[in-house]
């Protein structure tokens, strides 16, 4: 006896198609409520704070702008930090679909960013048409090698990827820190020297409609990467193999899938995206490297992937939302007067609610079951009542 489909929130949470998206939307709503609570406790107006986050990202007009900048330049800056975030979350998604956790995105970003900076960023007289593609290639190669190494350790020596990535994170952080401090340091800023304009993945100070904008190339790379990931997992046999490995190792072995190759290839692919994120972040956004500092983005991207239900297209929406808080925090802090660390607090809270997804779905299922039970009970009661009357 099939009942009519349940309606309302519980119905959405149990429907196969909408459950994941509903969880994400619920997580965002709960986060907004929690963040408003914190802002109210601090004695600030939540609506004004959220609006100034948007203003800081160039998604809403500010009251006044400094000379030569405008809403468009803010928007391009926002896109500039959105690009590496999206790439990093794609990196997590690729590994996650194969049942692997790439916690080492930060380290892989740092390694590729460092190599690209010293190989291309400091080279003189390199034409931009050679330098920019070279930077991207180095990013892919360095990240991919890191990832493949982790995959190799996993299948050959049975070292869990979470452990090896964490170890590698610190090794890379200290090693690059050492080289930056001894060879490439800018004495004034205590971080690495800035790289040449030709190698940068951002066209700086392009005048558009009277304001100067920094146009990020990374966002095009990131959007292309979304389609690559989507294509691999939806349309190719290789992607299907990876998904089978992720669903069940023993089943994959039984079906004749080469599990070892799957693990290494998946980590290499994941590392390659992390490497891309690294070059886009260091040569596009920051343009310099602070020694011994792992980019927090590597961890935030896990939040983005989780919020986007580990689907490449979902990651676009999720990274748009998470980045609003990170990118708009400075402006919010200067206008509303709340410490800008609240951005990472908000990301953390969002992540917390997104991690409760399974529980939300279970609650939805329970509500639907309870409703069905009630209907059945009512029907049974009606039947017995009818029997008595007869």
């Amino acid at each position, binding site marked *: 006896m099939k009942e009519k489909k349940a309606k309302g929130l519980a119905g959405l949470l149990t429907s196969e198609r909408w459950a994941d998206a509903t969880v994400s939307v619920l997580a965002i709503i709960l986060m907004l409520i929690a963040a408003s609570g914190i802002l109210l406790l*601090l004695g600030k107006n939540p609506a004004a704070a959220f609006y100034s986050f948007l203003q800081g990202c160039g998604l809403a007009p500010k009251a006044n702008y400094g000379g030569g900048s405008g809403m468009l330049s803010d928007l391009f800056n926002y896109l500039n930090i959105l690009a590496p975030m999206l790439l990093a979350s794609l990196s997590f998604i690729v590994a996650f679909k194969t049942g692997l*956790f790439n*916690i080492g995105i930060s380290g892989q970003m740092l390694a590729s960013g460092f190599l690209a900076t010293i190989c291309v960023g400091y080279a003189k007289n390199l034409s931009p048409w050679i330098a920019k593609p070279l930077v991207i290639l180095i990013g892919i190669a360095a990240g991919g090698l890191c990832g493949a190494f982790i995959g190799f*350790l996993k299948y050959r*020596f*049975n*070292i*869990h990827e*979470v*452990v*090896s990535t*964490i*170890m*590698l*994170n*610190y*090794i890379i952080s*200290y*090693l690059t*820190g*050492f080289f930056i*401090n*001894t060879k490439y340091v800018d004495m004034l800023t205590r971080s690495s020297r800035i790289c040449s304009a030709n190698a940068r993945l951002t066209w700086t100070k392009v005048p558009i409609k009277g304001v100067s904008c920094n146009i990020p190339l990374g966002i095009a790379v990131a959007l292309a990467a979304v389609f690559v990931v989507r294509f691999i997992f939806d349309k190719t046999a290789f992607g299907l193999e990876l998904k089978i490995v992720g669903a069940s190792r023993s089943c994959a072995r039984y079906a004749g899938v080469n599990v070892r190759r799957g693990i290494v290839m998946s980590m290499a692919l994941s590392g390659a995206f992390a490497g891309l994120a690294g070059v886009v972040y260091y040569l596009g956004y920051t343009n310099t490297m602070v020694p*011994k500092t792992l980019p927090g983005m590597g*961890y*935030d991207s*896990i*939040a983005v992937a*989780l919020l986007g239900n580990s689907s490449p297209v979902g990651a676009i929406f999720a990274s748009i939302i998470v980045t609003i808080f990170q990118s708009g925090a400075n402006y919010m802090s200067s206008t509303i007067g709340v*410490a800008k*660390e*609240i951005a*990472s*607090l908000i*990301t*953390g*809270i969002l*992540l*917390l609610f997104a*991690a*409760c*997804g*399974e*529980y939300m779905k*279970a609650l939805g299922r329970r509500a639907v079951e309870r409703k069905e039970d009630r209907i059945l009970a009512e029907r049974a009661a009606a039947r017995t009542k009818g029997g008595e009357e007869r």
Partner: protein
Amino acid sequence: MTKVFTDGLSFALPLLIMAIGAIYSEKSGVTNLAIEGFQGFGAFIGALAAILIMPRLSSSSQLPIYIAILFAAVGGGIYACLHALLSINFKANQVISGVVVNILAVALTTFFTSAANTAINGTASNKFILGVSSRYSIPFLSKIPWIGGLFQRMYPFEWIICVLAFIFWYLMYRTRYGMRLRACGENPQALDAAGGDVVKTRWIAVVISGALSGVGGICFAYSIMANFSPSIYMGYGYLAIAAMIFGNWDIPSTALVCLFFGLAKAGGQQLCLAMKLSGNYTDLFNMLPYVLTMLLLIFFSKRNHPPKACGQPWDQGRR
């Protein structure tokens, strides 16, 4: 040489207590990457308590340290409830839950440290200045050649950690609860059939894990850092997890591994000083424990025996 032993031990013991916390959680079947977050949050609560109590006491009083350790344990334990709730009751992926808890800990402590500083003394600094705990040498023992350094200039918390480590070793290997806890990580169904409560056992284990990590965190804050700031998230929690894996989820072997890490770190620093290298080279030596872990894992990980049910949410209906 003696300095290597002194510094090595004062680094190894806080690491050990965090590793024991990790062992408790993982032996009960809950994967715990959240040690880093637990220790930071515990240290935050401990440091906050110390900051609040310090003006009421004379400046030379050592009492705030003990209060801080107590509060750090309580704070870490309470914060661990979050990981327990997510991974035991809500059946979230335990690795993800661990990462979430870490990110949230960094964000929460950074934000509320500056908020608390603004409220207490009006400056939005992100540090609680704690100072370094005073040190004592043990008479006679510290005079032993070679290993005498182990007993020289000890922090009082090192004794507390030794006692705690022994208590929790006893609890795990010699009591009924410890037996159940280990069963819980290997075969929770068997424990359930024997009349144990899997959810309760795991909850207690995760809370213990948080409390011990908190103690480890505040000890680092009172020795190496001399303050509480976001730099407490140096990755020592992850190093403790590495020690646990390397020590094969066994408390005595993990203790040896922690001692080895501590001596390697302190030895590297002393070597760096002795060879008169610039401060930059300490980075290379700081890298040493991580490289060693990687190398040694390559040789030993085949023999490793992680708890069988580790990482799987408890499902009573499954066989």
